[in-house]
């Protein structure tokens, strides 16, 4: 049974009530085939229908006003009634519907998309495959139904993340989520559904949507056209239409298009070519987002945080590009379901496993090699396991330096991903392990690594309600061995353990709202230092700093509200509660000056007793106004709290950096960010432009006093200063997505300033504002790809940025024994010279023949094509003694990393 309700009074029929759909089908067949004859001069349509009714014993029901003034002239003999009515309705905004053996009802087309066989057809007249979705028994039951499903790669059945679905001739569309799933709310009808994704052929289906149901389209990688390679695998107009701003989104196809760095693709470093994302130095570890430190970025892999992102001190990222399907970097407008950091969230998703076949994928480069195997275990269970290892030790042996030859360097990482998919549930297990070892001569050795694990459980309660539960574990540990002096050799261990449980519910039952809500519990366990003698001959005493423990809990709610086609809001609220847990020994000071002189007492917080508490309300608000399909403006406000910071004594983070939890004296960092952006696409979304302004206000930023020592320091508050910060900037992006030439130009003007709050001694620059180490006002990146043919591609990357700030020696003084000391300038008073570099690469992609089992691709790249000696750091040292310099003079020197064009060659394969 269905109850046909016309939503407007204007179209409410009194004569149509309860109808039986099965009967309808029978009526339809009988009455449509009834042979009728009619002949009339030009007359009104109402009179014509009356005539047909009288002559053929058929009742017609309609509202007179629909046909008033309408006329018709027909002379037809012996025609089926159905065909006659088609002739009448084809040229009019009405449709007809049999409701009994001898009754027909006319209905307006644009208001009624109801009954089977007579649906509103929005598909145009293309002759394409038609798919029927929904249950016949539910036809016409609902005014709005859900079209949902999963977009899959036809080659391997893997979900395609970020694929775009668009309903032709409408403004309706969406993108697939991290699991390749999508959901659209539509009226029943016939639609032309376009499905596309970067690197895939666009495909179109005619979908007859009867009621809520699944449609799982398969798309295939591009194999023929060369003029449609798109850089971003996202909906072409996502930047304009999406409610999200300040987001950089890369999927596996986009990653494939990225230029090569040292050792091949480097996903994390590639983000530095985007507006608002910078790196302190060439090959430095981590990234700086909108003027924040690397520790202010939350790197999440399958929900587990990655606490050190670099192999070999920043030479390459720990992220194996083969396992990644999608990376989203939120620079601002961070959704309320994310917290923990104040600058950005980088969400990294592992590529779904191949559910059809066993595959091996890998690559060989100059410094490392990698391999990945994947395939199905059963119909529901799939696996992926892979690893990467360096073999750079050979290089050390040939370098003509005694110390280097005695050195060692190696790294490896392992990962596995197992997923199980049921009808309504999906569970995945992710595990990751990385290890780095290097030793410099017989002086110092380093061993550090990450262990990550997570369990993700997705459950679909019904078409409107789904949930995601994540249990995550992350462990970063570092060991530094001082081995130069046997009697003082030592081993220092530091680390962080992180446990998290998160549960998220998503409700999409409201037509214009998409609501997320959830809660999260995080437990931190920080080992700030454990020193032990390296061997029996060492007199270094064993010592251990107390571990720091804390809980960070949060509840959140996020509503993505599409008010109408032009206006949408994103309203989020996160409430975080943080408290430290004993045992903990802490000092009490006389005043806010945390110095040795001001100590008045020592207090002890017992085991599992709660110490310091912090609570934070973190509102997240964003709005979008869409002028038209090509243009929109968005704005957002974000407040974030960060309860754990990294105490990095250097501009670029190194493995020995120690994480520190907020406590009585080191307060949580607070960030308030305001942003506004303007987005416009041209030429059918093949040209994207955007401008974003942001202003970020930071509180409780940690800065070091001069000569600060935090290693094995139980009371680091004595070495640190509380600072305020303000970061602001404008980010411009111009991107061409298609054609033989594609690429982008990204330009950012930004400032990142700090001001230490005076605590007496050791204040920085006498309390004046100064640029942070990440302050590089001008930053320009240009990427240009030229697609020579189907497989060959050339890339050019150009980078320019203002030199970063540094502190320069200004004065020099003699001390005893002929030694000199210098007086440095105010902190970060000067800048190193501007940076610019051109890279080139040429790639031969894998064979396009689907039948070929072994497929290989080559990438040859040259970094720093014109051999610019970009300044990495500036330092001073004593000149070689000569009469000219009076045997004792200091001079400034600059260090550069790439002095010559550096070639690299990588071979990737899959079979």
């Amino acid at each position: 049974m269905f109850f046909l309700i016309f939503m407007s009074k204007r179209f409410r029929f009194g004569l149509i009530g309860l109808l039986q759909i099965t009967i309808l089908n029978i009526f339809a067949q009988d009455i449509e085939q009834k042979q009728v004859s009619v002949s009339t001069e030009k007359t009104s349509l109402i009179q014509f229908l009356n005539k047909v009714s009288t002559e053929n014993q058929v009742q017609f029901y309609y509202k007179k006003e629909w046909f008033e003034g309408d006329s018709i002239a027909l002379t037809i003999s012996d025609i089926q009634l159905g065909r006659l009515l088609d002739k009448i309705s084809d040229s009019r905004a009405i449709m007809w519907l049999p409701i009994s053996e001898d009754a027909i009802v006319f209905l307006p087309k644009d208001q009624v998309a109801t009954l089977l066989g007579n649906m509103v057809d929005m598909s145009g007249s293309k002759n394409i495959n038609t798919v029927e979705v929904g249950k016949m028994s539910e036809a016409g039951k609902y005014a709005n139904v859900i079209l949902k499903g999963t977009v899959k790669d036809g080659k391997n059945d893997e979900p395609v993340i970020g694929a775009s679905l668009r309903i032709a001739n409408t403004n309706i569309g969406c993108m697939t989520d991290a699991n390749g799933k999508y959901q659209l709310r539509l009226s029943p009808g016939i639609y032309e559904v376009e499905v596309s994704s970067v690197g895939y052929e666009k495909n179109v289906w005619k979908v007859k949507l009867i009621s809520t149901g699944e449609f799982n389209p398969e798309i295939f990688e591009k194999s023929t056209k060369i003029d449609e390679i798109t850089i971003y695998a996202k909906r072409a107009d996502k930047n304009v239409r999406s409610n999200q701003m300040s987001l950089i989104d890369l999927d596996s196809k986009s990653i494939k298009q990225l230029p090569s760095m040292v050792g091949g693709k480097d996903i994390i470093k590639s983000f530095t070519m985007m507006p608002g994302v910078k790196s302190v130095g060439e090959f430095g570890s981590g990234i700086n987002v909108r003027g924040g430190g690397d520790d202010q970025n939350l790197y999440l892999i399958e929900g587990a945080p990655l606490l050190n992102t670099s192999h070999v001190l920043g030479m390459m990222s720990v992220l194996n590009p083969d396992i990644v399907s999608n990376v989203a970097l939120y620079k601002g407008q961070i959704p309320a379901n994310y917290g923990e950091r104040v600058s950005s969230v980088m969400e990294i998703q592992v590529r779904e496993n191949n559910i059809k076949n066993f595959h091996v994928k890998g690559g060989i480069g100059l410094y490392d090699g990698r391999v990945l195997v994947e395939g199905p275990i059963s119909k529901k269970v799939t696996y992926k396991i892979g690893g990467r290892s360096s073999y750079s030790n050979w290089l050390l042996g040939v370098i003509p330096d005694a110390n280097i030859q005695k050195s060692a360097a190696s790294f490896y990482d392992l990962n596995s991903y197992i997923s199980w998919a049921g009808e309504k549930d999906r569970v995945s297990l992710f595990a990751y392990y990385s290890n780095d070892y290097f030793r410099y001569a017989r002086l110092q050795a380093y061993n550090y690594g990450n262990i990550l694990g997570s369990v993700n459980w997705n459950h679909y309660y019904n078409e409107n309600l789904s949930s995601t539960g994540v249990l995550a574990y992350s462990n970063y540990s570092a060991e530094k061995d001082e081995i130069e002096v046997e009697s003082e050799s030592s081993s220092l261990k530091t680390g962080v353990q992180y446990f998290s449980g998160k549960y998220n519910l998503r409700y999409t039952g409201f037509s214009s709202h998409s609501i997320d809500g959830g809660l999260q519990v995080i437990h931190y366990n920080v080992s700030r230092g454990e020193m032990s003698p390296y061997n029996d001959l060492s007199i270094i005493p064993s010592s251990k700093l107390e571990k720091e423990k804390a809980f960070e809990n949060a509840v959140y709610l996020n509503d993505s509200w599409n008010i109408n086609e032009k206006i949408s809001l994103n309203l989020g609220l996160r409430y975080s509660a943080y408290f430290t847990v004993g045992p903990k020994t802490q000092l009490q000071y006389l005043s806010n000056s945390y110095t040795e002189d001001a100590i008045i007492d020592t207090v002890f917080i017992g085991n599992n007793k709660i110490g310091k508490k912090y609570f934070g309300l973190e509102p997240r608000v964003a709005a979008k106004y869409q002028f038209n399909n090509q243009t929109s403006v968005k704005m957002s406000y974000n407040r974030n709290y960060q309860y754990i910071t990294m105490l990095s004594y250097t501009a670029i983070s190194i493995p020995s950096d120690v994480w520190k939890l907020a406590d009585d004296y080191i307060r949580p960092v607070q960030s308030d960010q305001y942003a506004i952006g303007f987005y416009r696409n041209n030429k059918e979304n093949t040209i994207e432009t955007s401008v974003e302004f942001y202003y970020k206000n930071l509180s409780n930023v940690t800065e070091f006093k001069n000569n600060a020592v935090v290693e094995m320091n139980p009371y680091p508050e004595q070495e640190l200063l509380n600072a305020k910060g303000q970061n602001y900037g404008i980010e411009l992006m111009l991107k061409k997505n298609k054609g033989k030439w594609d690429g982008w130009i990204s330009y950012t003007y930004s400032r990142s300033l700090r001001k230490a709050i005076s605590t007496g001694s050791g204040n920085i620059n006498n309390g004046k504002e100064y640029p942070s180490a990440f302050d590089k006002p001008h930053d320009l990146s240009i990427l240009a790809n030229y697609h020579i043919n189907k497989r060959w591609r050339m890339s050019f990357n150009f980078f320019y940025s203002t030199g970063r700030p540094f502190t320069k020696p200004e004065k020099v003084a003699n001390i005893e024994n002929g030694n000199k000391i210098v007086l440095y300038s105010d902190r970060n008073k000067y800048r190193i010279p501007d940076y610019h570099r051109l890279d080139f690469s040429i790639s031969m992609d894998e064979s396009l023949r689907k039948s070929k089992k072994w497929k290989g691709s080559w990438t040859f790249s040259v970094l720093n094509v014109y051999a610019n000696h970009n300044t990495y750091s500036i330092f001073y040292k004593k000149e070689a003694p000569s009469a000219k310099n009076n045997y004792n003079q200091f001079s400034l020197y600059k260090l550069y990393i790439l002095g010559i064009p550096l070639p690299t060659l990588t071979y990737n394969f899959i079979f």
Partner: protein
Amino acid sequence: MNAIVKIKRFVCQCGMFFMLIISISSCQEAYTDDDTTNDKKVLVVNGEITDKPGPYKVTLTYASDFGSDKVTYVSGATVFLHDDKGKNVPMTEKTRGVYSTDSAAIQGTVGRTYYLYIKLLDKTLYESKKQKLVDRDYTDSIYAEYGTYDYTATGTDGNIIKKTLEGIYVYVDIKSNSPETKCFYFSKKVVWQYTRSLNIPGQMPQPMYFRQVINADNLPDAKATQLYNGMQVIKKHLLFFVPYNVDNTNGIDSLNWGPYSSQGWVSYVFISGITKEAYKFYNDAAAQLSSGMQLFDPIPSQVNSNVYCKSDSTIPVLGLFKVYTQKNKYKAFMWYPTLKHVIEKDVIDPGPLVNDTFISRPQPYWVFFN
């Protein structure tokens, strides 16, 4: 070793290491700019008081601009040395910028506290922190071990070649029953003594005696004790390395010389018991001076003086007023390739720290090892 020094050195090493992995193309080159802007005068104080008889000196200069050798002495200042017994001893300017006590006016005493008062002509006031003269309650031992030292050099063909030197490493051990950490500063000089035969045609070969002073104070060398088995200990702290064959042919190549013989080294080690403030100063200075290729650009270590400007705390001051006790230790060492061990000899009078060349007979302080 001080943590900052370690960090700095680590950073430096990582830099070298990293660079050489990715490419041997990386390098350093002189950096010149003309944007340095600091016209302010920065006072440099170098002064001391010990438990040995005075006079004690304080030298006042202004720091020179970076890259310049120009030393500007500060004249006309009013300088006083104070102790915790209320004694105020004026220091008079003996030579330009050098202020001195009268020899009988004051003598440093262990356990007493001293500080300096300075008033410049422009009325700016400076004072040093109050520091206690520490005791001499410790034992020390200086000894040597054979070892090699590897380094690389550029060969005549321009290629980098590896070289190894044989020689001796000289160490110091210190022990004290004190319950508290003790801080020391080591200043050291080495005299390399050797003989060579001068072959003059028609004459008997004439042995000549040489002594050459080597400054081993490349970096300020301060060290604090560790608690070990109930004692405050410094164990096997490296003082310096001296190679067996010193390639020293300056100025005498044209003569017909025989081989080196009777080679030995006489070490002059001045062990100063210093305050914690001075220890920090020396470590900060060492961290500065050892900073090299700083790949990760650590925050510069500003060397904090124990003298501060009383008139305006934002005005920086450089230098150190050093309050210390000192022991002078002299020891001679010898080793040669066929010798199984290092020969050590205590020396009472090592002679002056001057170079002696072309001496035809051994000086009274010449150390004989056999």
